[in-house]
């Protein structure tokens, strides 16, 4: 029996879709069977982040409206053999096209076949959020180290607790070690202290994510990228392994320094 994990945030644009794509990728690399379920109806993005946008025939609403069977709508990601599938959101409908009950039935059905169902939640606290959390066993709340994002994360954590969500864990995205070092960005302890919630991982700000998104190849596939490493660690923690947080500041090796000097980013 699989587990349904909803990736949510409150504030928009903090990295839910990036997290869903990379966590799914990293879990699939470890041979878990994964479905990425895009619940952001009307604003679907997970397909392009994964580079699967040209393969969509049916979508989530087609499944719940019984236009097609679930199997027909699942897009297999060929990079991972039989380990990673995407169920895309409908692009031309709105959040009310699906009900929480339908989502629950759908995730139940997926749980029978897969180890992990990762639900990419829309921003906000309205119906799209209600739908996305309705079948979930646990939640990962994504935030950035900013006042507005942390505040909204607090609200979401409150709502998740009120809805009796199982485990709720926090992912801090876009940490910038240099800014933390000079005291201009809240660090991990500050945020955990304020939100009083378990941490599942920290992902640094990383240019590789932009490049990866351009290409449709999640950074978790790139063994040299810092963010990819962070997501692979998070995937292991999600499966119950104890993995220490990686040091924020990369030991800048000679090659990295030369690359940096030559302007290849950091």
């Amino acid at each position: 029996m699989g587990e349904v994990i909803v990736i949510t945030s409150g504030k928009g644009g903090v990295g839910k879709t990036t997290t869903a794509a990379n966590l799914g990728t990293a879990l699939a690399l470890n041979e878990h069977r994964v479905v990425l379920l895009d619940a952001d109806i009307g604003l679907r993005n997970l397909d392009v982040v994964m580079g699967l946008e040209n393969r969509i025939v049916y979508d989530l609403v087609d499944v719940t409206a019984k236009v097609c069977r679930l199997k027909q709508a699942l897009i297999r990601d060929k990079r991972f053999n039989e380990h990673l599938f995407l169920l895309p959101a409908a692009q031309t409908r709105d959040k009310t096209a699906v009900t929480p009950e339908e989502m629950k039935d759908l995730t139940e059905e997926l749980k029978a076949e897969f180890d992990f169902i990762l639900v990419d939640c829309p921003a906000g606290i309205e119906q799209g959020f209600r739908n996305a959390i309705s079948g979930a066993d646990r939640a990962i709340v994504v935030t950035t180290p900013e006042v507005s994002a942390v505040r909204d994360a607090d609200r979401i954590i409150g709502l998740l607790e009120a809805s009796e969500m199982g485990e709720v864990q926090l992912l801090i995205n876009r940490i910038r070690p240099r800014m933390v070092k000079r005291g201009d960005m809240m660090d991990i302890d500050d945020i955990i202290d304020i939100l009083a919630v378990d941490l599942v991982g920290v992902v640094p700000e990383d240019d590789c994510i932009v490049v990866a998104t351009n290409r449709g190849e999640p950074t978790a596939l790139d063994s040299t990228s810092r963010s990819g490493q962070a997501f692979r660690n998070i995937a292991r923690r999600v499966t119950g392994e104890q993995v220490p947080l990686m040091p924020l500041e990369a030991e800048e090796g000679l090659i990295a320094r030369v690359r940096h000097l030559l302007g290849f980013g950091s």
Partner: protein
Amino acid sequence: MLDILGKVFGRDEAPSKEIAKERLRLVLVHDRATVSPQFLELIKEEVIAVITEYMEIDTDGVEVSIHSLERSVALVASLPIKRMKRAVKAV
């Protein structure tokens, strides 16, 4: 002097993360204080239960509410006393 040193090293005020933390603390006190009427009712009942051990109060006149002040939030309870119990004096 410290000020000048601070300026020389490009640090003329508190690190901005301290400001962020303080603002966040306050905003969350306010956000979290928006509690449900049921919750307030629960607090009210428990407060009444405790206070009636020491004095007789007009339970119908009890009011419990949350007040937002600028830098903090307060739980305000008004408990009209009808009669003090003699035992209280002895304590």
